């Protein structure tokens, strides 16, 4: 069963766009095993359950957890790995001689988890974590356009490129496309392609880091 480590950003996008059902669907159809570290559970379920305006999203995600669609896992080395990743990522870029904090501990914990459990896929919608693992030079270029005095510890890029090479990164949009191919939108009959396109736009609106150009590419692939 392919292990998929899920970042909070993707689960939030899926829940807010009313697409959380795609997880149960893919678990059944493709045997995906969706896992989250303890900090992500706190972020998306434990804390928001106590805030009325956020509690419905938390309840939906808790339902997925209770049904076994999502599983919380950890590893003996997770605390140390998370610490290392936080130290490395938050001392990569400097502006006016000060290190820029770019990665949060939840995101770092996900990165630590997929390394220690040999996950096949890392589901993450937010852009900094994804760029750090796939193309840190691109991240540097984006940051240079926003900071006039950026200094970069490029020798640390290897640490993240090596980590990124161990896993494939997907977003909630790719999960949606996989689900479409397996029949997730078949109930929409002649409107199923339109339903997919709409779902993808809805994911973008909910914060999935997908560009307008990529959405156009999706519309061409699934025409």
């Amino acid at each position, binding site marked *: 069963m392919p292990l998929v480590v899920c970042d909070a*950003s993707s689960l939030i996008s899926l829940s807010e766009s009313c697409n959380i059902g795609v997880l149960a669907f893919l678990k059944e159809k493709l045997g995906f095993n969706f896992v989250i570290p303890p900090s992500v559970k706190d972020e998306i379920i434990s804390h928001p359950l106590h805030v009325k305006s956020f509690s419905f999203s938390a309840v939906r995600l808790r339902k997925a957890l209770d049904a076994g669609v999502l599983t919380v896992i950890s590893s003996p080395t997770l605390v140390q790995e998370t610490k290392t990743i936080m130290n490395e990522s938050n001392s990569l870029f400097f502006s006016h001689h000060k290190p820029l904090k770019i990665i949060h501990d939840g995101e770092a914990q996900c990165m630590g988890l997929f390394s220690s459990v040999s996950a096949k896929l890392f589901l993450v919608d937010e852009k900094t974590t994804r760029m750090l693992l796939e193309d840190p030079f691109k991240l540097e270029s*984006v940051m240079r356009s926003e900071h006039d005095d950026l200094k970069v510890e490029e020798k640390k890029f290897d640490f993240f490129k090596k980590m990124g090479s161990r896993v494939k990164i997907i977003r909630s949009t790719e999960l949606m496309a996989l689900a479409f191919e397996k029949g997730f939108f078949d109930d929409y009959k002649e409107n199923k392609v339109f339903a997919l396109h709409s779902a993808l736009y809805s994911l973008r609106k909910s*914060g999935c880091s997908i560009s307008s150009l990529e959405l156009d590419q999706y519309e061409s692939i699934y025409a």
Partner: protein
Amino acid sequence: MDLASDIKTLEERFAGKDLVGLRQLSSEAAIEAFLKNDSSFVELSVIAYSCSKLLEKQYIVNSPEWNSFKESLLRLLAQSRVSFNEGNFERGKALLHNSMMLVESLSTSIGRFVNSLISKARLKIGADMYARGASLGVAASFSGSDKKDLNEYIGSTKMLDKYVTLSVKQRLQNAKEAV
């Protein structure tokens, strides 16, 4: 930028009804918050932005509550500035926080805003930090905004067009290979 002189700038621009200046100060303080990893600049940014929004609304500025609010805010900001100048950072921060709560109190009691002014200000700050390289988690945590709301706010901007790494075809192939 240092807090005490920024608070002085805030007082002057608020008293002078300088809306553009307040928005500019808000942006600069948000950047400073990210660079210095200092949440006091977040609060300063929130106050500056919120004041600019309050000053935009004639019905608020003309309300019976306005003069007393303006006096109280300027007094709190002055006290905060003095505390920072004296090196009493805890007191300075507490007074800055009280200033922010005063703004929130006015906006909820007489404002006709759809969402809390402070929350909206925090979202703008969070989005700014996200644009400058912070992850969603860092941007949300530091700006004090909710991750879900920030995700949605960012999703409604064109910001997301800048972060392409792999093509859709490649990403889909990667996903399928895992099965």
